[in-house]
Each structure stands twice: as C-alpha cells, then as structure tokens.
C-alpha cells in the first residue's frame, strides 16, 4: 500500500511541475496573440485590445493563477488563430490519432514479438543475425523516412490512399453508410499505422530477444525440454510468458513517446491527428493550442508511467518500494 501511495504522490507532484513548466515554456518563446495581424493602424490600440482579450496584459503571476484556475475547471484556454476553445481544436485530432497509435502499437508488438522470439530461439544463426540487424536498422531509421518508403513501395503498388483520414469524396453528398465509413477510415489508417509499427517494432524485437534468451536459459525450460514438450509449447508457454514482463512495462512507458512519435508520421501522411495539430499550431504560433497539446502529452506520459508502476507492482511481487 505504501508503494501505491508513494507512486501516486510522485505522479501528482510530477503533474504539477509539468503543468507549471508548461506555463513558463510558452511565455518564454517569441510571438504571441498579435502575430500575423496585418494592418498599419493595428499596431497600437488594436494590438493592445487583442493582448488584453487573451489576458496577456496581466502580470505573469496573475496569468499563472488564472491558468491554474482555468485548468482546474477543465478550461485549456482559447486558440489565438481561430478564437475557439483549445479543447475544441484538439479533441478531434486526438480522437483521430488514438486508433492510429493503437493499430501501430499492435503491429509493432506483433512484429517485435515474432522477430524477437525467432531470433532468440535461433540464436547464433544467420536468422538471428539478420533479425537483429534488421530490427536495429528500423529502430535507428527516421520514422518519416520509413513513411516515404511505405508510400513508394506499398501505397503506390497497392493503390492505397497516401494521405488524409478519409477519401475526399466520402461525405460530399451526404453521410456515408457505416460500412463505407469504417472501411474508408481503415484504408487511410493502414499506412500511417504500418509506418509507426515498423518504426517501433525494432525496439520490441530487441527487448523480447534479450528477455527470451534469459528465460530460455532457466532451469524450468530445461525441465520442459527434458519432459519432451514440443518446441512451440516450450517457447510460448514457458519462454514467452515469462519474458513478457519487460515488454508490458515498455509498452506502457513508451505510450507517451508513441503519441509524440505520431507527429512525423502524421506529417508524412497528412493525417489530421494530434501530431499534425501540433505542427499547425507551431506554424501559426498558436501557443494556447500548443500549450494544450503539450499538457495532454505530458499527462499521457505521467499516467502511462503511473500505470506501468502499478502494473509492475501487480506482475512482480518483488517490487515493494
């Protein structure tokens, strides 16, 4: 119980620090509410009015108090670029991104586990070497470069859509059927998810291989062999199950990174998710939106870390502090 209380307290403290840093960060960079205004006589009164409208005429401390108060009420602020609540601007991109990163994570885990198990089982062979180097290569490759390769070698030959989240004609003449909507979305999700999956699988493959090698050297595996169990039973029932612990925690820990990693994938595929929203907000210097996105990403990482801590506590009885 002490462990859970400690981890909860640590997570809350981290959250508060992150929220505060999020406030400081976006007030330390150039640009602001009046960026992009184009009129000679806007330079004095109008610019002041805009600054006042966004509360930027108050002292930093006052702004900080207002910021915390608003956050406490679930208000992320108002976009400078389109004058809408930040949450309205980022809700849909977030909803768009989540299925893509879930699909990407599933692809990466499946590929990673398969590659890691095969490499560990055939350790020292050409298969192991090829598997390991391939995993390393994809782990090291820039994700956007993988995306371009996917466009060239998968989208073009198969005629799959290389951009967007749905066909540009899908809903022009009325709402599509559920089936048409789902299949169209799935078609558009496939390549970004595959790119994310390929970009991430290498890390999982290396972890699984390493963990499997350790597990396969255990006495109970030797016992299983001595009992005459088939290879697949030894690998899946005795090896992989016990090697999964680091993988589970790695997935949880990397969740926040995956969301951030989606930025480059979404840029390649013009996928209107949280990554593209981030790039747009940077381009427009729309700091309230950027602040909202960063806050969400930060919270995602902290929550994922907290979940990993709890999971570890549950899965590994040795963990007590």
């Amino acid at each position, binding site marked *: 119980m002490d462990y859970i209380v400690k981890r909860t307290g640590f997570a809350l403290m981290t959250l508060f620090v992150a929220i505060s840093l999020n406030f400081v960060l976006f007030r330390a960079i*150039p*640009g602001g509410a*009046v*960026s*992009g*205004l*184009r*009129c*000679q*006589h*806007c*330079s004095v*009164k*109008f610019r002041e*009015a805009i600054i006042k409208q966004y509360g930027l005429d108050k002292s930093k401390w006052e702004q900080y108090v207002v910021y915390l108060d608003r956050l406490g009420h679930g208000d992320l602020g108002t976009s400078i670029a*389109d*004058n*809408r609540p930040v949450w309205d601007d980022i809700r849909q991109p977030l909803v768009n991104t989540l299925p893509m990163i879930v699909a990407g994570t599933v692809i990466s885990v499946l590929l990673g586990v398969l590659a890691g198990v095969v490499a560990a089982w055939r350790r020292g062979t050409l298969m192991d070497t090829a598997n390991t180097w391939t995993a390393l290569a994809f782990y090291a490759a820039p994700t956007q470069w993988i995306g*371009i390769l996917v*466009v*060239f070698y998968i*989208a*073009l030959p198969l*005629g*799959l*859509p*290389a*951009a*967007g*989240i749905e*066909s*540009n*004609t899908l*809903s*022009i*003449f009325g709402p599509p059927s559920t089936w048409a909507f789902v299949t169209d979305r799935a078609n558009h999700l496939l390549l970004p998810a595959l790119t994310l999956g390929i970009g991430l699988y290498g890390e999982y493959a290396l972890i699984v291989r390493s963990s499997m090698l350790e597990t396969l050297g255990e006495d109970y595996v030797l016992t299983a062999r001595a009992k005459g169990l088939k290879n697949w039973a030894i690998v899946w029932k005795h090896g992989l199950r016990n090697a999964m612990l680091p993988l589970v925690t790695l997935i949880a820990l990397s969740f926040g990174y995956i969301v951030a990693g989606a930025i480059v994938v979404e*840029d*390649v*595929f*013009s996928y*209107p998710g949280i990554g*593209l929203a981030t*790039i*747009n907000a*940077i*381009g*427009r*210097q729309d700091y309230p939106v950027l602040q909202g996105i960063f806050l969400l990403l930060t919270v995602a990482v902290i929550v994922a870390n907290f979940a990993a801590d709890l999971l570890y506590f549950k899965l590994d009885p040795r963990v007590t502090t």
Partner: protein
Amino acid sequence: MRAHRLAASALAAVLIAAGCGGGSSTNAPSGGGIKTGGVLRVGSTSYIDSLNPFVAIESQSYVAFTMVYPQLVQYGQGPKIEGDFAKSWTTSTDGKTWTFTVRSGAKWSDGTPLTAEDAAWTGNLVLQYASGPTAALAAALTHVTSMTAPTPTTLVINYDAPVDNVLPQLEQFFILPKHVWEKYAGNSGKDLKTFLPEHSLPVVSGGPYTIRQYNEKGTTVYIPNKYFYGPKSYASAVALTYYTNSTSMIADLDAGNLDFVDQVPYNAISSVKSGGRFNVQSEQSSEVTNITFNSNPLKPKNRELLDPQVRQALEYATDRAQIVRVVYSGYAIPWANMLSVQSGPSSGINWLDPSIKPLPFDVTKANSILDSLGYKKGSDGTRVVPATTGKYAQPAHKMEYGVIVPNSLDFNGDRQFQIIAASWAQAGVKLHEVNGGDSGPAYALETAGNYTKFDLATWDWNEYIDPDAQLSYMTKAQWFSWSDTGYNNPQYDAMYKQQGTITNVQQRVALVMQMERIIANDRPYIQLVDEGLVTANTKGWTGFYPDLGAYCKCYYTAPHRV
C-alpha cells in the same frame, strides 16, 4: 506562399481602361456534348488560410475568394477583362466617375438578394479602414473616393483623378455579403480581422460555389451555388485536399485518388510526365522568388545591410543557376525584375525594363566590393564590420545574419537557403536559418518592432497581371499590410500615386520602368527566379485553365469529365 494569385502566363492581351465596355462572361467553354457531374478532386500543397479577405495571405485563399465572392470584373480566356457581376460599364467624360450596371435578380447562396448595394457597402467599408483593418484590399481601390448604389443594379464609383487601370484594379475587389458582414463593421473595424467565415458553414456565397466543408490543412469541399448569376460549374463538387507531403500527393494522383494537381513538385515532374498517364501543362508563372532585405532606414542593427553596395555584392555571391538546377529541377529562370515574366511582351504591354538583368554569379567580384567597403575577413573567414559612430552607432560585429524561411512555400525553401548560405559564405557572410512558420507568423517576424528586428528573409510574390499592386507593395502605405521590406522612399511613393493616374499607356510604362529601376538599384530584394507553373490532370478530366488560376471563376467551373 505569399500574395494572392496563382500564376498566369502567355498573356495575349489585357484590356486596360475602356471608355465603355461590357461583360460577356465567357468563363466556361461552350459547346454540346460536355459531360457534367463528378467530383473534381484537386491536390495542392497550398492551403486556404482563411476565407476572410482582410486576413488571408495564401494564394489558395484567393482561389477560394474568386469562387465564393462576386467581382465586378474578372479575367477570361486570353486573358482579357470581362464582366462578372457587372454586365457593362461606362465612364464619365472627365474619367473620374465609373458607372457599372450589375446583374439583376442575383442572390447570395442563402437566398438574400445580391445587389449593387453589397458592392457599394463593401467598397466604402474598405475605404473607411483602408490604412487599418481593411488594408489588404485597399490597394484595389487606390484613388477611389466613394461608391454609391442609386439602384439595385447600378453602382457608381467615384475617383479623385482619372485612373488608367480601373478594371484590372477592380478585378482584385471582392464583394462581401453585407447582411453577413455588417455586424462586424463597428468597433473601429477591429472585428473585421477576427470574423472567420469558415466557421459558419456553408459559407454565404455569391460565386459559383459555396464551401460546405472547410479543413485548413485537410479537405475543403466546394458545392455549386444554385443561385449563382453566371455560368454554372460542370463538376458537381470540387474537393480540394491539402498535402503536407508532396510525395504523398503524387502517390495519390498515381493511385487515382486525385484528378488535378495545381503545382507538381519540381522534383516529381519527370516521373509524372513519364508514362503519359497524365496531361502535364508547363509554363512560366507569375511567381517571383527573392531574398528580402529589411530596408527600414531606422533599423538599429546590422545597418550595413542597408547599403546598396553590400546588397549588390551579395547578389554577385548568389548562385541562381544552382538554385534553378537543384530547387526547381530546371523549371525556373533566373530573374532580377520586381515584376514577373507575365508583365513582359506577352501581356500586350511590355512593362519590363530590359536593362534590369540578374548579375552573374561572381564571388570574386563580391569579395572585391566588400573588401573595398572595409569589411575585412576574420580568422574564421567571416567578415567584420568596423564600429560606427553617430545616431545609429554600432559596435564592430561579424557579418552574421538570420534568414527567415517560411514553411508555406511551394518550393524547397530549406534547400534554397542552403545554397545561398554556401555561396555567401564564400564572400565571408555567414547565414543561419530562422524558421518562419506559416505565412502569418513569418510576416509577424518581418514586421516585429516596426520592421526593426529582422535582417533577411526568403519568400516569393505571386503577381497580378497589371503591375499596380506589385508596385504598391513597396510603398510606405503598405507597411503592416503587404510590405515585407519596410522600404520607405517618398519619391517612389509619389511616383506610385502618379502612375495610376496617367492615362497615356506609353507614359505610364515609362514611369513604371523608372520605378522598377529604383527598386533594382536599391535592392530591397535580390530577386532570384521566376518559377515554372507545372500542373497535371488525369485523362478523365479536361477544360483546365491553369494559367488563369485565381483570376477567373472558370478555374473550377470549366473543368469537366471527358
């Protein structure tokens, strides 16, 4: 991409200042057997940044304005001026009053009558806040003193002097729906900058299309406006998709997910041309790229960059040929004039001063000039500017400058920067790239501190057919509106005022050329290239007029299925 219009080229004739005239609205090809219907799917790397004409910068926005807002006149095939909302027009004997007869019975897309009153109200609104919130449209109404609508079909425009280019100027004037916009006209016009029509869909339109779906960096859907007064569109809708990645755009074209690409990426032109699957049109555009110098005489730092001799040296150090070869794959020509190729002889009037030519790439010459100015190279190869005294005293400092590079360019701005930085380094000038972001923030960086903060930028201008607008961008009146240099030359400003009122074409040409020479000598820009315009469409569609771009409603109404 900054400034309004998509490229025009190969102009056969331009109608300038008619005593009287009329519109025939030939903005769509006639003839039987044209297949109607189908969704025209357009791919672009340029996006609609807003449907508010007082705010937008991107050229794609101006295509949208042309489709959504009525204009008195527009360019038709030729291109030549023809009537759009105006059916005919006359001018008074003193040339100071123009009377337009507009279409009767026209309606906005929401069913509200569209009359001359909408035009008069918009015009007077632009005039009222011309040096403030409505400055972005004010250049089109230079010399206009007032507009009145004595009847629903009569619009009277009063000028303070006879103006030579009334019709080309009015082609840039978009008529807004008074019943939508008038509630934003108070508050000293401030609300005109914050109202975003794209948030109230479908947009109230008087043009051939209304916009039902808007996604700035996604897909925007144009649906025909059933009340449009002019020729109806052949397509049943236009779906414009913005691509963050040009490779994905070409992949979608190849996969049959697009029908038309409005600018093929330069590095993909050969692959799109190969195989003969697409109709590829290639021509010289109205887009001129440049290196921009902060030319505000009050700029406090790095004031050596105000010196025309330094700028001349830096032009010698600029390798245009490499930029053409690497950035444009050969689809551009080295350029030095502030006006584009389209203002040359093919326009019917040659506005281009033949004496203005790009300087050759000559680093030795560049070094020689900078040496003669006393800027000696330091141990690291970067030149040092000696300390100065007086009102604008500066300490000794290295010739190291930041270059703002916007990310909304239709060419590889980063690669272009690298080429410029490498060749300027040979002359002892060190550059670093400053990410400008989208057009709005990039412009904010240039105008920050009343044009006192930035040194250099790289950007481009998409130019109009008549040179007036481009000439105006160098005037003080355009500060914080379209001026991106902070250039301030009262003599030039006076000449600009004068050129618009000269009714003798040859005299006006002579004055315009004189203005070109002033800009060429002062070099607020080092002009780099005039870009090629390369479009591609599938064989299933025809009727494209890429050269008319945002000049003509036919750009989206004329394409039809084969």
